């Protein structure tokens, strides 16, 4: 069993962090193989950012497959760019605050929606949108147990304990949305 995930969005949306948290949780708490592969433009700020996470019971070939099983898009341009790579019957996770479901011209894929930009703003910190989306993804796919992912986030945020309650709330809200759309 091998899962190829692509996470794409603007620079600054925490796309890389989302992917790294998932890969870290897989490394720390399972026997599975996992790879994380970032892809940046040459720009330091404001460009597009995307990363690839492969989780597998067997050996992993490319850390960036030709065809994605799952795709998380955080903004419109990423939908245009990466939707064609999603396999038939694959799952698309969209940031429905700024990505319009009507633009998803693929009737053959399952769409999971979460308005993570608005939710994060409502929670008072625009930055937690990626943690909400990670919750959505893990809640829906259960590719790694949610408690394992949370302990990884907790560990990574260890130096900023003030941020923990907010992130915990964000992650749990995401889980709820993910589970509810199964």
């Amino acid at each position, binding site marked *: 069993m091998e899962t190829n995930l692509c996470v794409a969005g603007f620079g600054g949306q925490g796309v890389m962090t989302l992917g*790294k948290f998932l*890969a*870290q949780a897989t*490394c*720390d708490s399972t026997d599975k*193989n*996992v*790879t*994380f*592969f*970032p892809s940046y433009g*040459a720009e330091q700020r404001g460009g597009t950012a995307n990363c690839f996470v492969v989780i597998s019971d*067997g*050996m*992993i*070939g*490319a*850390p*960036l*497959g*030709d*065809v994605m099983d799952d795709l998380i898009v955080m903004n419109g341009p990423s939908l245009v760019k990466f939707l064609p790579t999603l396999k038939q019957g694959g799952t698309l996770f969209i940031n429905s605050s700024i990505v319009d479901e009507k633009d998803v011209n693929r009737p053959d894929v399952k769409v999971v929606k979460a308005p993570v930009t608005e939710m994060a703003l409502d929670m008072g910190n625009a930055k937690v949108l990626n943690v909400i989306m990670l919750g959505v993804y893990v809640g829906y796919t259960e590719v790694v147990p949610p408690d394992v992912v949370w302990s990884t986030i907790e560990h990574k945020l260890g130096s900023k304990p003030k941020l923990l309650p907010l992130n915990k709330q964000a992650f749990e809200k995401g889980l709820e949305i993910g589970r509810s759309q199964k």
Partner: protein
Amino acid sequence: MARTLMKGCEAIAEAAVRAGCRFFAGYPITPQNEIPEYFARRLPEVGGTFVQGESEVASVNMVYGAAAAGTRSMTSSSSPGIALKSEGISYCAAARIPIVYANISRGGPGVGAIQPAQQDYFQATKASGNGGFEMLVLAPSTVQEAVDLTYAAFDYADRDRNPVLVLADGVIGTMMEPVELPPMKTDEEIAAIKASKKAWACTGHKLDYANRAWIQPGQWNTVIMQQENEKAAALYASWQKDIQVEEYMIEDAEVVIAAYGICARIGKSVVDICRAQGKKVGLIRPITVHPFPYASFDKIDYGVCKGVLDVEMSIPAQLVQDVDLGVKGRCPIETCLCSGGNIMSREAVLEAVDAILAK
């Protein structure tokens, strides 16, 4: 043993520190910046020294100096920067100074592309500088292997008093993967390594004309120059015992994929997919790309093999010339290539395999 999720570049740097590397000099270039950045944080913690050189040229020469004083030392860069280092590498080879360096290769020629590629094969294996010297060139295809080979590289370098190149690519350098890290050499072990070099290292000697340190990347005397080259040639010939290669399901293979580095792991996953479908496909993966494991190609059953598929992220193909020397005309060789910054497509390799099988 505990697994740690590490980026290839950082894993290479940590492996070097654990192997006793206590001096690193480098210069920024994408996609290897995490190596100097990691050393800049890490070396002061273990009593080592990091210097950001004013150029790749300066950096490799700082490493030449530090290694000539007996310290395990390393530099790294990416393709255009490696070209700049070729002067210092050639001097280290000529003066028989043990250094380790890593090429996290990117597109080329020229400034090329910052994305991963395997365009530096000839440079790495045939001529990393002037003068026809040779090096062990180690090509990892996973982050774990990058760790293991970097760790071993320091032992090879010291054993031979010769540079060792870790030839990775931008994918291995930038991807994260779980690794098990090798043991940290103790301060006592590191001191013993340094002490073992005291006889030839330039740190000062008691007045004794015959036994001062005299590190020379060249000779005025033509007879001695030839003798030095003959000694080096004998060393290079001795490396046949150090050849490392992965031969995967080649005995009955109708198609054998030949690939190194990132392309090899993609090739291996293709072998698994094909075997699950009943297709007889195998893989030869040179781990030492120099010296090259030509003999592995003698293990192919040319009675059933329809072709060898050379898979590399280089246009024009380069590895294929060594594959050709291994195959010796016993079956056709096809290529599956990409370049320009995109990673090799598994689908493309599968198609190329099917095309050979269909013949």
